[in-house]
Every structure is written in C-alpha cells, then in structure tokens.
C-alpha cells in the first residue's frame, strides 16, 4: 500500500513544506514502519527482558539437548531420586530421568502446543468475531449464541472425552486446545468490531463504493489488531497452562513424551519428601514463559499503534 519513496525528491520536501498553507512542518525523511515500531517496542524494558527470555527458552529446549545429552527414552531406574549435582545438574525424577534434560524435551512440547494452539484459536476466533460483529443483526445473534454455547461447556470435560476417543499427540492437543479456546478471541474481536464498524472511516469506504470485505479486512481488522495481539499472547500462556492442567489430571501427552505441566504434577507427589528439583524448575519455567509472552504482547500492541510512533 505504501507509496514508493522514489516519488518524493528532496527538492519537493524543502520547497513544499514552508508554503504549506495548512502550516506545520511536514518534512524529514520518514523511516521504515518496522524501525519505528521497534523503537516503541524497545521502550519497554520488560518487553525486552521477555523477548530475551523467550529466545533463551527456545534455545534451551531445542539446542540444549545437543549440548547436555541425556537419556530420555529408556529409564535408568537406578538413578531415581538422585539429588542435583555431579552428572545430573538438577537431579533425577522418580523414574530416573534426568530432570534438566527432561525440562528441555518437555519444553519442546509445551512451547509447540502453546504457540500453535494460540495461533489457530486466535486466527479463527478473530475472523469469526469480526464477521459476526460486522454483519450484525440476526446472524450476529446466532453466531454469538454458538460462542456462548461453546463457552458454557466445561472445557476439561470436553477434552477428557476427546482424549479418550482420539489418541493424544502434540498435533491433536493443538487441535483440542484451539477448539475450546477460540470463543475468547471471537468475543473480544466482535466487541471491538461493533464499535469500529460505526466509525466514519468505515462509512467512507461505503461512500467511495467499496464493499463489505474491503471494509472488514482493510479497515476493521487492522484496527482491531491491538486487541488480537494482546489476546494472542494470553492465549499462548493459557494454552501452556491448559496442557499443564491436562498433564496434571493424567490426560496429557502419553509417556515417554511429557510437558512442563505433567512434570510439575508428578513432582507434586513428592512435595513432602523435599524433592524440590522436581517442582520448582518446571513451575518456574511455566510462570516465566507465560509472563514473558504477556510482556511481549503489551509492547507489541503499542508497537503496531502508528499513533505512538515517533518521527
């Protein structure tokens, strides 16, 4: 959409600006959108810390196992409950798996499910919500009642039933979580759309002869993007937590695969025995990952807000 920079010669800038009867200096070479967005993003120290942590955790999960090689398929049972130190930096669990190595493998699953489930749920939910709000009337009522119906069913129950029917894997987990999560972004985006569609710039599209899809995808969705982004980062955190919860209930990914939530729930069995390394590391990783994504989301919302950009 942007107009090529070649169109504006420097001469036009200096000549035109002072004579502009509207006044105000409209000069200076504009910088790229990405760069200006990054400036706003980088203003938030928390977001930078969050991004740093996310990069670290991705490296930890996918590169880590190549550096810190552990046995994560067969169980050397004689190592069970060994304390941190020596060959096992964070000790071992009740089956003799190395905890640090297991955190890496579990993280791969938690992160994959978290990110993909959130992406699927938010994309579908946003389009659904925007369509519902934009069309309005009876269709809107109907579409929103469907959302209410989905929200009113206890999601743990749904997933438990599904898990019994379909063999759980990373892929099916993504599908299940997206299936129960999409109504939340849908409701938020619909609310935003309801207020956006009455804006004059949406009417302006109509006056120029433009159709509904242009109004929706060109004007309403980009303006609702802030809401969608924030919701998406919550969705990542929530998906990781839902996966954890299922693991905790014993309906998570089947062994030997695991995720942070399953590790935590298993560790909790030994809370009275003082095996802290089975509880704190997994819990801490869940919390810090969720918090990091929320920080990033907050700053991203500001970064895509062109009104906050500086020249």
């Amino acid at each position, binding site marked *: *959409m*942007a*107009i*090529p920079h070649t*169109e*504006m010669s420097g001469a*036009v*800038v200096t000549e*035109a*600006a002072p004579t*502009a*009867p*509207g*006044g*105000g200096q*409209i*000069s200076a070479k*504009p910088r790229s959108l990405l760069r200006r967005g990054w400036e706003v993003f980088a203003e938030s120290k928390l977001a930078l810390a969050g991004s740093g942590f996310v990069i670290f955790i991705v490296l930890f999960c996918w590169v880590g196992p190549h550096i810190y090689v552990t046995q994560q398929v067969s169980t050397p049972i004689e190592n069970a409950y060994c304390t941190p130190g020596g060959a096992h930096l964070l000790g071992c669990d009740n089956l003799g798996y190395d905890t640090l190595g297991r955190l890496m493998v579990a993280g791969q699953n938690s992160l994959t499910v978290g990110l993909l489930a959130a992406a699927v749920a938010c994309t579908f939910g946003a389009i659904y919500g925007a369509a519902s709000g934009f069309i309005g009337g009876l269709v809107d*009522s109907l579409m929103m009642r469907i959302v209410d119906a989905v929200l009113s069913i206890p999601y743990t129950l749904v997933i438990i039933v599904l898990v019994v029917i379909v063999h759980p894997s990373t892929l099916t987990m993504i599908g299940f979580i997206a299936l129960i999560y999409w109504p939340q972004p849908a409701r938020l985006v619909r609310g935003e759309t309801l207020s956006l569609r009455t*804006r*004059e*710039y949406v*009417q*302006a*599209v*109509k*006056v*120029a*002869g*433009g159709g509904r899809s*242009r109004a929706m995808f*060109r*004007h309403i969705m*980009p*303006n609702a993007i802030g809401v969608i982004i924030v919701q998406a980062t919550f969705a990542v955190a929530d998906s990781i937590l839902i996966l954890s919860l299922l693991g905790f209930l014993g309906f998570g990914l089947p062994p030997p695969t695991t995720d942070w939530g399953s590790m935590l729930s298993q560790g909790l069995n030994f809370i009275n025995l003082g095996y802290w390394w089975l509880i704190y590391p997994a819990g801490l990783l869940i919390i810090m990952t969720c918090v990091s994504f929320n920080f990033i989301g907050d700053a991203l919302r500001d970064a895509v807000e*062109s*009104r906050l*950009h500086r*020249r």
Partner: protein
Amino acid sequence: MAPLLELTDLRTEIKLREGVVHAVDGVSLSVDPGETLAIVGESGCGKTMTALSIMRLLPPGGQIAGGSIKLNGQEISTLSEDELRNIRGNEIGMIFQDPLTSLNPTMTIGNQIAEAVLLHRDVSKEQAMERAVEVLDLVGIPRVRERIKEYPHQFSGGMRQRVMIAMALACEPKLLIADEPTTALDVTIQKQILELIDDLRRRLGMAVILVTHDLGVVAGQADRVAVMYAGKIAEVTDTTTLFSHPRHPYTEALFQALPDKAADAGDRLYSIPGIPPDLVNPPVGCRFAARCRYATDKCREEEPQLIGEVAGHEFRCFYPVGPSERSEKGRIAAYDTSLGEAPPAGPGIGDVLVDLDRLVKDYPVTRGAVLQRRVGWLSAVSDVSFKIRSGETFGLVGESGCGKTTIGKLVVGLEKLTGGVIRFDGKDLAKSSAREYRKERRKIQLMFQDSYASLDPRMRAGALLREPLVIQHIGSRQEQHERVAEMLDKVGLPRTAAERYPHEFSGGQRQRLGFARALMLNPQLIVADEPVSALDVSIQAQVLNMMKELQRQFGLTYMFISHDLGVIRYLSDRIGVMYLGKLVEIGPAEEVYLRPAHPYTRGLLDSAPVADPAQERAKVTEGVRGELPSAIHPPSGCRFRTRCPLAQEICAEVEPPMTPFAGEGHFAACHFPLQAAVGSPVTVASEQAALS
C-alpha cells in the same frame, strides 16, 4: 476597587513524554467583583489551562511553576490541597464544556447538588436538599420538586448545563469560571444559557470568567476581554474597544477570519497562515511572528512586553495596528496568497443536478435485546423536497436533531429512503442496477465533519487517497500515485504528506486531506457535513477559502450542512432551513438572512451570536424559547408551534404548506409569516415545478 482575583506572572507547565509544555507562560490578569472577563483564543492557546490553574485542577503532569494567584488578597497558589478544597466550589464555582460527562449518571440531580452543599456548609441533609431546590429553581428548571429525583440522562443537554450551573452556584461563589459553557449546545439553547449566566451574575453580584473560542459570545457577554495566544496574553481591554480598535495583529486577523465579516459571498476570507507554535519549544521573540503579516526581524528576535498606551488597554506588539487599517480591504487580498491568484470564474450555475422529491426517513424505535419489538417510529426527515442546481452551493441549516445530517446521508446513499425519490442528473439512483449504482457513487461524495474519525488511523495519507481509485478500479498503480500527488497539490498539502499518518496532521490539514479524498473520483456533488465545525476560526477560514477555490476550478456543486449561520451565509447561494425533520424555509441566502419569513428562521438568526458588541447588545428578541420536542411524537400541524411566539390554534391542526415570498425561489411554510406572501400556497401537484 480591589480586584477579586489577581493573577501575576502565572506559569503552568505540563510534563509529557516528549518534554515540558509551557501551557501558561507568564499570564497576569485581574477580575473585579461583579465583572465578566472573557478569555478568548484558539485551541491550545492556554485559555482553559489558565482557568484550571486558578482551581488547581490540572491534568496529570501539570503543575503551577511560578507566579501568584490572589483571591481577595489571599495567595491561593501555595495553599495545601485541603485548604484549597475550601475554596473550590465554595468561593469559586466552575462549569465545564460537556454537561453530560460532568454529572454522575448514577446519582440523582438533587443528591449531586446537595453533596456540593454538604461539603462546604454545616447543614443537615434536608437543608442541603432545600438549597438544591432553591438553586435549581434559580436556574430555571421547571417542576423542580419532581425533577430533583431524576437522573442526568433524563435531562436534555441545555437542562443539564443548567443543573451544572446550579451546582456551581449552590454555595454562592464570588467567582464563576465557565469553560466553554455553551460549545456543545445549539445556538438557541446557547443564547438561553448565556443569558442565564449573565442574569445570575447581576442578581448574585458574582464575577464571571468566561473561557471561549467564540468571538460572538464574547461580544454579547463580556465586560473585558483577554486574547490569548500560545500561552501568553496578546491583548487585553474592554470589549467595545477590542472590537472597534484592536491593536494586536492577531486580534485583528481573528476578526477578519470570521465569515460573517466578509461583505458578500464572493470575498475571500483572511486566513492566518500556518498553525500555532509548539509550546514544548516556544519560539524566541514574539510568538505570533511566524504567522504575522507585519512581522520584522525585531519581532523574531526580541519579545515584546505587554504594554498599554491608554489605561486599560494593553497589548504585546512592537508594531500595533492602527484603527484605520482594519477597513483596508486591499491589504487582506494582498497578503492572502495561500492558494495563489484567483482564476476566472467557473462554469457558474447550470441545470438541476439533484432533485429531492418528498423525502421521508423514519427510524424504527425498538425495545428488547433479541426480539426487537418495534414500539414506534422516529421521524427524522418528513416530506422534504428541494433541488440543487449544478455549480451552486446549497446550505442546509438547523439545530442538532433537525434531520440535516440524515438528508446528507440519504443523498450519498449511506441510509436508505423510507419514502420519496432522489434523482441525480435525472436518474433515480434507487432504481439503477448494482453496477450502475457503484459507478454513480463516484459522482456524489461526502466530506465528513470529524476528519480524525473519518480517516483510518492505520493508513498513510497516500493510501487513504488512493483507496477510492482502487475500489473503483481507476487507472494503473502509477497513475493512481500521480493523481494522489496532484490532489495533494490542489488542497495545499506537500507531496511528502502521502507518507504520513492522519494523526501527524493538524486539524485543518486533516480536513484538507478529507476534502482531497472526496475529490479523488472527480465527483460532481460534494455533500459537506459540518466540515469546519471542529476547526478554529483562522483554520476554518483556510478550509473555506480552499473549498470555494476548488469549487470554481472543478465546477463542483456543494450541499453544505452546518449549524453555523455565519459559515452557511458566507458560502451558500441558496439556503434551506430545517426544523425537526421539516424544511421550513428555502430561498436565496441573502433573502433568507435579511428578510426571513418563518419565525423559526428569525429566531435562529437572533440566537446566533454576532462578533459585534453594539449589534449583539442591541438585540431585544429572545431567540427561540424552550427545547426541541421529541421526533418520536412530533407536534401535530406545524412542528414548530410548541416554541413559536406567533402560534395559534390553526397551527396545531393544519400543516402549513410552502408559500412563495418576495425574492426568487423564496418559500416558507408558515400560517403567520413575518412578511406578506406573494403567491398562493404550493400544492402537491405544482410543487415539483415551483421548488427549484
């Protein structure tokens, strides 16, 4: 007489992310007991901040950085928050612009006023309620004892402002600060409120500080006026002197930018070039120098002091303008080069372009969330017919809720007609095919009131301007870009503006952008809905000049919708006056202004404040009484009868037909017109031919 309030070298700063805004920069003022001082200026000049500083109700990050505020000789700028609370609402009362957001929607009117009394007086709840009844009665609320138990939403805008005034007066303050008290109200209500404030000032012997941007309001109300510019006082004197002999070039320019000052519609308005300076880094020297036509190097280097040659008249200028220079018309033209030389006249007025035939628009009034039962109809437009010829400017004027915006939306196709026909170039648009309709759309474009709301904040100006072309599949990418650049030139924006986002433009620039977008498709008719209402006088003049200029260049036809009679008169060839969904009078602009036939038109003209103290104070008529009735149950017969001073029985029974009056195409619908009719009433059959 010792002044009631004395500001000395007051400085107020607001800390923002980008730096410190010097909102008020060394203001010295005094207000005597019982007088009305007006602080006037454009938005961002620091007039509201000055008022808020007195009450110390500054926005977050704001603080008084220096100077003193003395009330009755007592320094109040250094008082603690607790001590100050005794003064707020007690010695100084304040009214704000928006009466809806200033009242708590969950508390009854009576309780809100009683609360103010209880805070400052040692009285019982019952006594406080008694006082509430008393003040509400004082501000002219009918049936006070019943209404005191009602909530803010049950009051109309004008009534809410009366409640606000009552609340401010509850503790008998010595000073009332009114911050744009009537800006959100219609002219007829504005007149009532301003008269109420003035009447109360006299009866209660309090002083009033009136903060406003409207020179007309100042002319009618103020004893003395302080003109502010960029955080400083530019000129201060008594009202009569200011209007007859302004000395500061800024004051002079403000007057010349007023549309009602232009002798006739052909004149260009004087527009102050540029925009006010940034108060984060204020310029050295005179702050007005960059926009001043008399400025020299001295002005840009050295700051003039606020001095006076005559007692009571001070101004901040090295080269004050003399009384004689105001009448010099040639000067205005010579300095106004914002749009280049005036080209020869355009194609002029031609055949009928738009024909509105008995338009009706009703909105259903529904109840219930899911099963929306219809419980009635709101009659927004009722049987309105008129024609607009190509090349002319048709002004549609009326109070809010009269249906003028609805007509605009019907014409551009944003709303569907309930009844009647709109013919454009002889064709009924509603009957054309979808493809044809899409093409016809190009020829009718809308210019919105709020340019900020009508430009997508996430699109660059270039993309915004290109969008109509993209939608209509006109030209290649390259051609579209060329057209964008060409249009930016036309509306006086630099080509680099294409890279900017809407929020990076000033209000006037955004309105130019909105106008450029409307022009992209080469339309024949532009419906302009209050295009300058949100702009300051000087910027308004720039936009009006541009609109006139481009009308000539492109042979455009305008349907100009506004509540501002001055603007409508300046721009329009013909005027239609609407009241509650009905067209009550139509005719040539000058004819309707000088010899209105309908009492409503007369009342509207009387209500509109004129920037001339002598004329404004000489007005004896009371404007229009009462408030706009509901459009769900409009009055029978003539809809204006409930507020009309001339109404008789027949007005309630028979709807008055359109009747011709002296002057070509001058018609009005009234049983008791203010002048004799020159022909027989227009019957339905002959209406078509006659109302052109």
